[in-house]
């Protein structure tokens, strides 16, 4: 069966994620409502503003749907804002989050927009050379514990983490033409269905 990959489309660069997954063997769909979230076998929380996406999740009951999807064992991948929302701890900030991953994140950790950058990253579990990674007002992970496993670092800062069925990237694989990380996530989804 072709897995349905939900792209959370409340706010952010969901269009780029939809486009990126459209080249792979899956059915990517934009999701904004609780029942739409629950119709998927995997979920991507895109880049955007984490405070905005978090508030919208809470206001419209999408938060509970995501928790339910997670309890069902469906993989969830967060990029940038999505990573912030998956983290248990956000440094110096009490904003709402899903709090599913054993990681602490620092928002805008590399600076403001003028400090945004692109670089080449070696990633554990991704073969065939480094991945071009675009960081935009990006967070990084300051601490991992429990089951969380670091997959990539940039200048000693943790920028990609996996914890069982949860994946988090501080950067935006959806903004380049390389589909290896989408395929990595799709493999996580396919391994459970």
């Amino acid at each position, binding site marked *: 069966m072709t897995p349905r990959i939900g792209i959370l489309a409340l706010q952010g660069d969901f269009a*780029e994620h939809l486009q990126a997954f459209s080249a792979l063997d899956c059915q990517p769909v934009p999701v904004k409502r609780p029942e739409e979230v629950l119709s998927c076998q995997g979920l991507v929380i895109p880049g955007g503003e984490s405070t905005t996406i978090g508030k*919208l999740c809470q206001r419209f009951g999408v938060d509970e749907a995501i928790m339910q999807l997670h309890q069902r064992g469906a993989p969830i991948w967060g990029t*940038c804002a999505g990573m912030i929302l998956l983290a248990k701890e956000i440094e110096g*900030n009490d904003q709402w989050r899903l709090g599913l991953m054993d990681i602490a994140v620092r928002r*805008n950790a590399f600076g403001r*927009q003028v*400090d945004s950058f692109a670089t080449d990253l070696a990633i554990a579990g991704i073969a065939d050379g480094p991945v071009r990674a675009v960081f935009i*007002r990006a967070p990084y992970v300051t601490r991992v514990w429990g089951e969380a496993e670091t997959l990539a670092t940039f200048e000693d800062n943790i920028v990609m983490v996996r914890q069982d069925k949860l994946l988090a990237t501080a950067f935006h694989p959806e903004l380049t033409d390389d589909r290896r990380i989408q395929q990595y996530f799709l493999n996580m989804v396919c391994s459970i269905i």
Partner: protein
Amino acid sequence: MTEKSTWQTKVGLAQMLRGGVIMDVTNVEQAKIGEDAGAVAVMALERVPADIRAEGGVARMADLRIIEQIMDTVTIPVMAKCRIGHFAEAQILEAIGVDFIDESEVLTPADEKFHVWKHDFDVPFVCGCTNLAEALRRIGEGAALIRTKGEAGSGDIVEATRHMRAVMTGLEHLKGLRDDELMTEAKNMGAPFELVRQVAHEGKLPVPNFSAGGIATPADAALMMQLGAESIFVGSGIFKSEDPAERALAIVHATTYYEDPHEVAQACKGLKGAAMVGIDVASLPEEERMANRGW
């Protein structure tokens, strides 16, 4: 290789702001209200467009202390406006670290002939347009985000719809042209040939397109999103209304679920305070229209 502030990171931030509402704010309290309502960014300025219009005088880049206070208060991106062609104001805004610069017709133009050469900057720019050709001229100069101008400070949506429809019709027209027709089309449009060709082939702009100028209600936001806007700028519409906090929430709600009239109705029903009074744009003399600034 690590590269800072590339075209991709500039357009990338614009892409992250999609599906959201960017609110004009003049102080820290308003910025907080915006962020709490779910704004994706705030535009820091000294006076909202309706006040600029009412009070007259020269409208310039905002007081840097206000911008910095707002940057220190909210975690969402902070934008600020420079005057058309005033590259020194833009340099200053970049130096203090704003996340996006709006080279804006809402301020009094500093140059009647030339816009800022935006490729020279590390910070991304947004510029207004009234049609596709104007959008492509600004993108050619380095704008990483386009917004249709509408008529700022009017609370009247008619110019916003006119400009959005003009851009969308322009895209449809270009898509239908053959390669051998594109050079003449670029000449007639007064737009850069390479961009005309790219848009004709891809069928869309190379940067996101948002809507601005006259949005005052949740229904206005839903209208502009359905006409093709990817996000909404609200200037006077929020802080010139009776109850800014509830209106900010309602406009965010309507922008998120713009395609569903039941949701937009819910957003409208939550409003107890009145919308800004506004001005019928048809009653505004040409020389008082901000959309005519820039070319």
